[in-house]
C-alpha cells in the first residue's frame, strides 16, 4: 500500500459519506449506536463500505466513530471487528485506504467538563494502538468540536503510532467550534503538532463551508479536507430528509475543489450517490498541492495571534522576578492573584501573556501546569510559557490548550537539544535568544549569526523558520552606552533576513530611575526598526501610548480606530486619581470611604482607602469606616432592606479597600489566626455560594483559605494540618454531592476531631447538616459571617 501522504501530493482523494444516517435509513433504530452493527449486522456494514468504494471513495472510514472506553468495555474487540469489515470491503483494491475513525469521547475536558487531559489521551491511545495492530492505513480524527479534545486525540496518535493522521473539526454557523476555536486557531495548532491533513466535517452543508474553506486554503500548508453534511435535516411526510440533493451537493463540492480543497467526502445525510456525483463532477478540476505558508502564529483554544499584521504585545507581569506580591502568590498557591494579573493585562490589550512562576524551592513543573490550567479557564489569550526548567516546559507544553509560544531557546547545543524535541512533539513557536556558550556577542552581526545557527539547527528537527522568533537581547544602557544601538541594528538585520524578532524591552533601563521614560523611547525605536513582538508592561501608559501612536502613524491602524478606542478608554478609566471617576459622575468624588463601601463602589473605596492612609492609622480606618459600613449593610440585608447583589458589591468594595490598607500594615494585613478554610466538595462544580461566603468573610477581615471547587476530602484535611485553621466551611449544591460532604466530615472527624465544620449550600438544612455530622448549618453568607465572628470571640 502506498503511503497516502505521498499519493496526496499529486492527486485529489475522496472520503466516503455518512454511515449512521444511512444505517438509520436501513433499519438502525434511533438511539442505537451505529457501531453496534459491526457485531449485529456486519454484512450491512461491508455492503455500505463497498458501495462507497464503488462510488469512487479512496478512503473508507471504519465504523468506529463512537467506540471508546467510556462507552464500551472491550474496545479492542470492536475495533478489530470494524477494521476486519472495512478490509473485507476493500479486498483487492490497492487504491483504497482504510482510515481508523476516531470521534469525540462524548465527555468534555476540564475545566468545562470533568475529563482530565491525560485521561483523554490514554483513552484515545488505547484505540490507536488497537487500530495500528489491526493494520489500518491512517487515522481520521473527526467531528471534534473542542480544541482540547482534538489535541488529546492527535497527541495519542503521534505518541503511539507512526500512522498518517488526518483531523477534521465540526464548526458551527458562526465559523467556530462549540468551545470557541476558529479555523486559524485549529490550523496553527494541528499543523504545528504534525497533522498530515486538516479540515472540517459534519455541522452543515457544503454551502456553509465555502467561506470557511478560504481560511484553510489561505493558511494551511498541509492538504485540506472538507466532509460536509447533506445540508440540514428537515422532516418531510414523517421522514427525516436532508435539504441538499446529491446534484446540488456535487456542485458545491466542485466549487470547493476549484478553491483547491484536496480531499472531499461527506458526513451526515450523505449517501454513496452523493459521493459518486461528487467524484464525477470534480474529477476534471485541476489539482494543486498546497504551498508552504510562511505565517507565524501562536494560538489559544479560541483564536490565533498572527505576527504578520501588527507588532504583538506580550504582557510580562506574571513573573515573580522583582514582584514580591506575585512571588508570594506563587509560594502560597494564590491563583486568584495571578488570574487577576492575567485578566487585567488582557484588559489592557496584550495579545499574548508571558507566564513565569519560577520561584526557588518550589515545584515549578507542578505550579506551571496548575497556573496555565487556571489561566486558560478564564482568559483565552495565547500564552508564552517562560521557564528554564526543561521538565516544567515539557509538562506545560503538553497540557497547554493551543499552540504556545516558548520562552526560550538559545544557541547552546544543550538548550537546542532539550527544547526542539518538545517543540516538534507538542507544537509551538519559540523565542531564540541570540547567545551561546560564549555569552552575548557584542556586535549585531554576531547576534544575527547565532539566530541563523539556531534556525538551521531547528530545521534538523523539522521545525520551520517561521516558528523561530529571534530575540537579539537588550542590555541595560546604564552599563554600556552603545547597547541600544547594537540591539536595534540586530533587529533591522534580522528583519531583512525574514526572521521574526522579539525583545524584552524593559531590560534596556535596568538600574536607571524612572525606567518608563527610557523604555518608551526605546520601544518606539525598536518598533521603527521592525520589531515583531515586545515583552512589556501593559500597565505602563507610556509604553501603550507609544504602541498605539506608532501604529496610527505607520499606517497599521487605517482609520485610527484602535488609537481612538485606546485614547478614549485611557481618559475615562479611573487610574491613580479619583478625579478620573468624576468625569463619569460628578457627584461621586464627594463620597467618603464609608459611603463608598455602603454603595458598593469598588474603585472609589480603594482610592479613598489609599488617601486615608496618609492621614490615619490603618486600624483606625478599618474600625472607623469599613467595619461600620459593613455593619450597616449587613443589618440592612438581615432586615431585608438590602438585597444580596448590593451586599456583595459592598463586600467587594470593602475588600478592595482592605487590599490597600493591608499593604500599609506591618504584619502584611489580615490576622491569619482569624481564618477559615472554604471548599465546594468533590464532584460539585458550583462555587457561587462559596465565593459569596468568601468575599463577605474577607470583607470582615477574616483570612480565607479557598480550596476552590471539586475538592477531595484529603485536600481539606491537608489544609487543616498545614494552616492549623480550626474552622472549615463546606458547600454542596446538589443532592448527589452531599455524600462527598459527608465523606469530608468523616475524614476530618477521624483525623482532626477538634475542627468545627459549617455546612452550606442549596440542598442543606439544619436536619440534613446534623445527619451528616456537621457542627452547624448556615443558611446564607451573613449567617456564616456571624457564626465565624462568634467562633473567634467565644
Amino acid at each position: 500500500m502506498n503511503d497516502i501522504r505521498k499519493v496526496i501530493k499529486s492527486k485529489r482523494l475522496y472520503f466516503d459519506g455518512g454511515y449512521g444516517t444511512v444505517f438509520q435509513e436501513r433499519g438502525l433504530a434511533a438511539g442505537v449506536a451505529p457501531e453496534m452493527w459491526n457485531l449485529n449486522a456486519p454484512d450491512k456494514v461491508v455492503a455500505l463500505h463497498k458501495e462507497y468504494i464503488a462510488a469512487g471513495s479512496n478512503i473508507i472510514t471504519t465504523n468506529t466513530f463512537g467506540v471508546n472506553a467510556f462507552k464500551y468495555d472491550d474496545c479492542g474487540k470492536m475495533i478489530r471487528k470494524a477494521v476486519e469489515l472495512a478490509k473485507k470491503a476493500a479486498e483487492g483494491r490497492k487504491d483504497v485506504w482504510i482510515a481508523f475513525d476516531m470521534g469525540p469521547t462524548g465527555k468534555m475536558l476540564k475545566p468545562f467538563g470533568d475529563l482530565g487531559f491525560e485521561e483523554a489521551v490514554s483513552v484515545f491511545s488505547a484505540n490507536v494502538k488497537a487500530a495500528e495492530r489491526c493494520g489500518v492505513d491512517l487515522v481520521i480524527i473527526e467531528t471534534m468540536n473542542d480544541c482540547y479534545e482534538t489535541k488529546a486525540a492527535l497527541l495519542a496518535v503521534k505518541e503511539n503510532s507512526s500512522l498518517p493522521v488526518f483531523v477534521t473539526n465540526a464548526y458551527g454557523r458562526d465559523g467556530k467550534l462549540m468551545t470557541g476555536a476558529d479555523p486559524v486557531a485549529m490550523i496553527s495548532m494541528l499543523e504545528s503538532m504534525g497533522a498530515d491533513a486538516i479540515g472540517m466535517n459534519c455541522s452543515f452543508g457544503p454551502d456553509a463551508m465555502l467561506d470557511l474553506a478560504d481560511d484553510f486554503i489561505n493558511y494551511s500548508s498541509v492538504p485540506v479536507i472538507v466532509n460536509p453534511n447533506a445540508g440540514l435535516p428537515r422532516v418531510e411526510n414523517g421522514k427525516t430528509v436532508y435539504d441538499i440533493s446529491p446534484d446540488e451537493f456535487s456542485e458545491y463540492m466542485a466549487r470547493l475543489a476549484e478553491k483547491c480543497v484536496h480531499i472531499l467526502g461527506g458526513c451526515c445525510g450523505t449517501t454513496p450517490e452523493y459521493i459518486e456525483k461528487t467524484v464525477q463532477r470534480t474529477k476534471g478540476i485541476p489539482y494543486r498541492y498546497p504551498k508552504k505558508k510562511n505565517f507565524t502564529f501562536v494560538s489559544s483554544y479560541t483564536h490565533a495571534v498572527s505576527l504578520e499584521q501588527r507588532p504583538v504585545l506580550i504582557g510580562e507581569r506574571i513573573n515573580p522576578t522583582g514582584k514580591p506580591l506575585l512571588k508570594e502568590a506563587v509560594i502560597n498557591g494564590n491563583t486568584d492573584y495571578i488570574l487577576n494579573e492575567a485578566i487585567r493585562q488582557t484588559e489592557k490589550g496584550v495579545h499574548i501573556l508571558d507566564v513565569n512562576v519560577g520561584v526557588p524551592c518550589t515545584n515549578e513543573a507542578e505550579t506551571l501546569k496548575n497556573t496555565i490550567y487556571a489561566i486558560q479557564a478564564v482568559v483565552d489569550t495565547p500564552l508564552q510559557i517562560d521557564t528554564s526548567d526543561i521538565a516544567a516546559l515539557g509538562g506545560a507544553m503538553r497540557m497547554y490548550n493551543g499552540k504556545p509560544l516558548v520562552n526560550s531557546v538559545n544557541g547552546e547545543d544543550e538548550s537546542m537539544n532539550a527544547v526542539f524535541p518538545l517543540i516538534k512533539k507538542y507544537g509551538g513557536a519559540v523565542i531564540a535568544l541570540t547567545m551561546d556558550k560564549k555569552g552575548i556577542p557584542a556586535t549585531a552581526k554576531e547576534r544575527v549569526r547565532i539566530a541563523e545557527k539556531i534556525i538551521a539547527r531547528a530545521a534538523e528537527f523539522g521545525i520551520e523558520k517561521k516558528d523561530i522568533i529571534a530575540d537579539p537581547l537588550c542590555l541595560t544602557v546604564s552599563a554600556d552606552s552603545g547597547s541600544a544601538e547594537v540591539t536595534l541594528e540586530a533587529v533591522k538585520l534580522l528583519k531583512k533576513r525574514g526572521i521574526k524578532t522579539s525583545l524584552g524591552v524593559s531590560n534596556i533601563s535596568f538600574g536607571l530611575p524612572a525606567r518608563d521614560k527610557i523604555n518608551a523611547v526605546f520601544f518606539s525605536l525598536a518598533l521603527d526598526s521592525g520589531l515583531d513582538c515586545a515583552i512589556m508592561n501593559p500597565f505602563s501608559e507610556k509604553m501603550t501610548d507609544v504602541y498605539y501612536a506608532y501604529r496610527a502613524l505607520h499606517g497599521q491602524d487605517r482609520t485610527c480606530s484602535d488609537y481612538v478606542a485606546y485614547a478614549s478608554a485611557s481618559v475615562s478609566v479611573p487610574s491613580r486619581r479619583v478625579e478620573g471617576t468624576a468625569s463619569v459622575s460628578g457627584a461621586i468624588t464627594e463620597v467618603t470611604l464609608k459611603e463608598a463601601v455602603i454603595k458598593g463602589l469598588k474603585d472609589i473605596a480603594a482610592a479613598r482607602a489609599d488617601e486615608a492612609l496618609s492621614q490615619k492609622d490603618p486600624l483606625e480606618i478599618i474600625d472607623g469606616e469599613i467595619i461600620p459600613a459593613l455593619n450597616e449593610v449587613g443589618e440592612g440585608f438581615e432586615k431585608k432592606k438590602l438585597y444580596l447583589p448590593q451586599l456583595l458589591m459592598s463586600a467587594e468594595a470593602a475588600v478592595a479597600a482592605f487590599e490597600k490598607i493591608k499593604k500599609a500594615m506591618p504584619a502584611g494585613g489580615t490576622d491569619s489566626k482569624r481564618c477559615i478554610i472554604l471548599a465546594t466538595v468533590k464532584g460539585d462544580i458550583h462555587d457561587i455560594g462559596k465565593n459569596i461566603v468568601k468575599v463577605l468573610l474577607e470583607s470582615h477581615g477574616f483570612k480565607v483559605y479557598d480550596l476552590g471547587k471539586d475538592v477531595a476530602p484529603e485536600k481539606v484535611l491537608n489544609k487543616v494540618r498545614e494552616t492549623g485553621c480550626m474552622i472549615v466551611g463546606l458547600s454542596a449544591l446538589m443532592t448527589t454531592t452531599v455524600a462527598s460532604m459527608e465523606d469530608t466530615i468523616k475524614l476530618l472527624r477521624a483525623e482532626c476531631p477538634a475542627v468545627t465544620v459549617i455546612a452550606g449550600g442549596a440542598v442543606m438544612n439544619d436536619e440534613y447538616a446534623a445527619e451528616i455530622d456537621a457542627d452547624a448549618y448556615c443558611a446564607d453568607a451573613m449567617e456564616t459571617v456571624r457564626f465565624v465572628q462568634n467562633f473567634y470571640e467565644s
Partner: protein
Amino acid sequence: MTAAQYFYGEIGADKLTVNDAEIRARLQVKGDYREVMTDKCLINLQSVIRCAYSAVKVPVVFSESSVNLGFGEIMSRNLAERLKGCDEAFVFAVTLGYGVDRLLSRLAVTSVSEHFVTDAFASALAEAACDYTEKILAEGLSCGRRFSPGYGDLPLFYQARVLAAVRADKTLGITLSDTLLMSPKKSVTAILGILK
C-alpha cells in the same frame, strides 16, 4: 420501522427575554432589580450566548409502571402521568453554549457580585430558551407540560439517555460529567408530550 425525526435550530440571544418574576426570585430581590451593574451583566451575557436546540420526535409506549420513548424503559409514574393521552412526544435539549461558561468562570475570579447576578440571568435565560424551543416544536400542535430528568420521580441518571437520543453531543456539544452535570452549564433537557 420509521426513521427518527430530528430537529435542530439556533435561537438568537435577542429572542430570549428574562421573566421578571423569575429573575427577582433568583436574585433574591423583591422590587426593581435593574441598575447599572445588573444591566452591564445582562449585556455582557447576551453577547456571549450561542443558543441552539436539538430535538427528536419519538413514539410513546406505556406499560404498567413505565414509559418507553424508544430509548429503553423509563421507570417514572410522574412522567407517565405527564404523558397521559400522548402517542408521541418531543425529547429535546437546549443550551446557551460554552461562551457563558467561560464568562462565568472569569467572573468567579473578578467579581462575586457580577458572577452571582450573571449566573442568575443565565439560568433565567436558559429557561427562556427552553420555553422558546417548546414554542417552536409545538407550533400547530397541542402539547402538554414539559418534564425533565431530576423532576419528581424521574431520576437524573436518565439525562444520559435523553442526551443520546437527541444526539446532543454532536449537535450541541452537551456532555455529562460523572456527577450528571451538563456542560455547558446552562443547558436544559425536557420531554414534551404531544396531545392529539
